[in-house]
């Protein structure tokens, strides 16, 4: 994977030194909170409900075992022994103390990590397909492009004070696992008629209070034009984007206000100016970066005991059926390690679990680890003959839950258990849904389903693109949950439709249960997924399941 150059290293060290002094000056009173707040946010440090929170970027979700062990060390030394992986491929520490933060940042710098641009109106951590470099359906590994974008956007002087934050997602596969359609810029790799790889460029997608699916501004952008084109988009947005109203400042609003045609025209005009200025330096850099993402030396070996285990051991079989994905190299599989054990907090890993994952990645996974926006951990390259041993080791640590893509593989934002912006809790709702369906032993029968929960309108839990979306609100001083159905975060993206009046906290699990029992009753057969059933049947029967007969029109 990409290792920091001397330039990256000295930049990050300089920022740590700078922030160390800023913390000292805050603690001795030379800086007021008003002065300090923007400085700490620039370094990923938030103040939440119960404590500070440090948000650390995991660029495009790629992390190595050494870095994972350092996160474990930080969790144990400076936090409460765990970390929380988020939908932005970041990790959040929920309990750091202000005087310790410089030491934490310094420990991160030791392994080439940082918390820069995880806040503020800048280009945030570039997110990518978590199966990048491994997926069978991939055209090209998108991470060299993501790394190019990271280097270009880090401390880019023109883009430190954008109208609002800016999120870029990239995938090298036509199958979109990176929710590219709900980002400020989404890049989805496709081939043109000549078979050359390029990007479909989407602009102006986003969730939050105004969910919008991005508009395609370019069907095919040659890969060599990526940087000047993205810079052109940012440049146009920086000029047009509204700074008078925080709620209208994202590029999705610029898109709506300007119109797709005019915005595309402006981007193309700016691109025509930008492109000659790049002069090939970006392409030379890209070549160097590519070398750092060369695939590991895949083993050419028989599958070994995989088939025997698969036949003989039902627990292993269930796990293999849900947690493995097709790898591009023969004999290999992509392993998703579930951080969604029933009843646990989605996305949390203890320091011990992080260390074990690091060890197992070294032993069985060519030392590669990924973090998914779905809050799970991926070992992208595992030879099938190693899967039984890997599964056994994961089982011992509570990491072998066989539920990827099922009811209990829920995305949940921190919600009002941590987040200062929250209007309701999301974590316990996820815990209770997972526990309930485990009791019912229904999740394998229900099959593929994405439930996504946010604790406020900001939609960090991606509820709009959940097959079942749950949004926690504060209705007259009581937690209340709005349900949306039919959302989809893939290449067939759709925003879920609001069903009707919200549900009280203790009514959410029964409501979800009614929805899923209705689905089981109405599906054509086990091959028709929940999402497919909602598309075939419309939402009427599900509305009835939620509110009863007669509520269909009234709701």
């Amino acid at each position: 994977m990409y290792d920091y150059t001397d330039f990256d290293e000295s930049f990050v060290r300089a920022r740590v030194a700078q922030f160390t002094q800023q913390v000292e000056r805050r603690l001795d009173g030379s800086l007021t909170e008003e002065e300090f707040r923007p400085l700490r946010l620039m370094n990923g440090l938030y103040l939440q409900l119960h404590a500070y929170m440090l948000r650390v970027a995991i660029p495009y979700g790629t992390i190595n075992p050494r870095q994972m062990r350092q996160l474990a060390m930080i969790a144990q030394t400076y936090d409460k022994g765990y970390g929380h992986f988020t939908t932005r491929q970041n990790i959040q520490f929920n309990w750091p103390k202000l005087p310790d933060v410089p030491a934490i940042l310094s420990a991160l710098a030791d392994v080439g990590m940082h918390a820069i641009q995880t806040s503020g109106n800048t280009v945030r951590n570039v997110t990518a397909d978590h199966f990048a470099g491994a997926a069978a359906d991939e055209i090209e590994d998108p991470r060299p492009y993501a790394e190019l974008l990271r280097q270009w956007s880090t401390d880019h002087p023109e883009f430190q004070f954008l109208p609002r934050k800016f999120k870029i997602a990239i995938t090298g596969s036509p199958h979109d696992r990176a929710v590219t359609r709900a980002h400020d810029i989404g890049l989805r790799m496709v081939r043109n008629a000549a078979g050359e790889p390029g990007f479909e460029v989407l602009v102006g997608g986003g969730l939050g209070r105004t969910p919008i699916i991005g508009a395609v501004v370019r069907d095919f952008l040659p890969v060599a034009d990526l940087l000047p084109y993205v810079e052109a988009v940012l440049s146009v947005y920086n000029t047009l984007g509204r700074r008078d109203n925080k709620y209208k400042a994202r590029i999705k609003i610029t898109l709506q206000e300007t119109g797709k045609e005019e915005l595309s025209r402006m981007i193309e005009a700016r691109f025509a100016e930008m492109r000659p200025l790049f002069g090939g330096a970006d392409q030379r850099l890209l070549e160097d970066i590519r070398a750092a993402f060369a695939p590991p030396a895949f083993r050419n070996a028989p599958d070994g005991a995989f088939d025997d285990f698969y036949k003989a051991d039902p627990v292993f079989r269930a796990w293999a059926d849900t947690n493995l994905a097709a790898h591009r190299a023969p004999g290999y599989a992509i392993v998703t390690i579930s951080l969604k054990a029933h009843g646990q907090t989605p996305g949390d890993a203890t320091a011990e679990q992080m260390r074990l994952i690091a060890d197992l990645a070294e032993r069985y996974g060519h030392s590669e680890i990924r973090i998914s926006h779905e809050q799970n951990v991926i070992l992208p390259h595992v030879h099938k003959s190693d899967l039984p041993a890997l599964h056994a080791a994961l089982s011992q640590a509570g990491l072998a839950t066989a539920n990827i893509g099922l009811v209990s593989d829920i995305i949940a934002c921190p919600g009002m258990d941590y987040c200062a912006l929250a209007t309701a809790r999301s974590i316990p709702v996820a815990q209770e849904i997972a526990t309930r369906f485990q009791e019912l032993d229904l999740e394998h029968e229900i099959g593929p389903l994405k439930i996504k929960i946010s604790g406020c309108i900001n939609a960090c839990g991606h509820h709009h693109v959940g097959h079942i979306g749950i949004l926690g609100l504060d209705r007259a001083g009581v937690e209340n949950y709005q349900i949306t159905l039919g959302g989809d975060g893939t290449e067939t993206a759709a925003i879920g439709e609001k069903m009707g009046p919200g549900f009280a906290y203790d009514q959410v699990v029964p409501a979800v249960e009614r929805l899923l029992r209705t689905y089981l009753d109405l599906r054509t057969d086990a091959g028709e997924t929940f999402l497919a059933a909602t598309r075939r049947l419309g939402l009427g029967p599900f509305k009835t399941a939620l509110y009863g007969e007669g509520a269909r029109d009234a709701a």
Partner: protein
Amino acid sequence: MSRRFSPKVVTANRLREGDVVYLTADDRWSPLHTEAELIEDEAHAQLRLLHAAAQKLQVVGAYLADARPGPNGPEPTHFREEFRSRGPSNYAHGKQADGKQAELPNV
């Protein structure tokens, strides 16, 4: 017609640790909601808030939160303040772990 002033406490987060604290009548910052000064008068509330905001080396983000009298001292009225007085619901971390949770009859 002016609405009746609903009682308040002054709350903030500690600068160094970030944990939730409440201003007491004798000018301490207590981790216990029940030890907070319950302020029943609007003018006094503003004065106490100013006093809190001036303590820039102790606390961050002081504000007035609704509260009501309870058997052991002031209790939060809104669920957000109830969570702040207790800690997260997914782990026994924060005040509930430190033995600093207010004894609230309603939670």
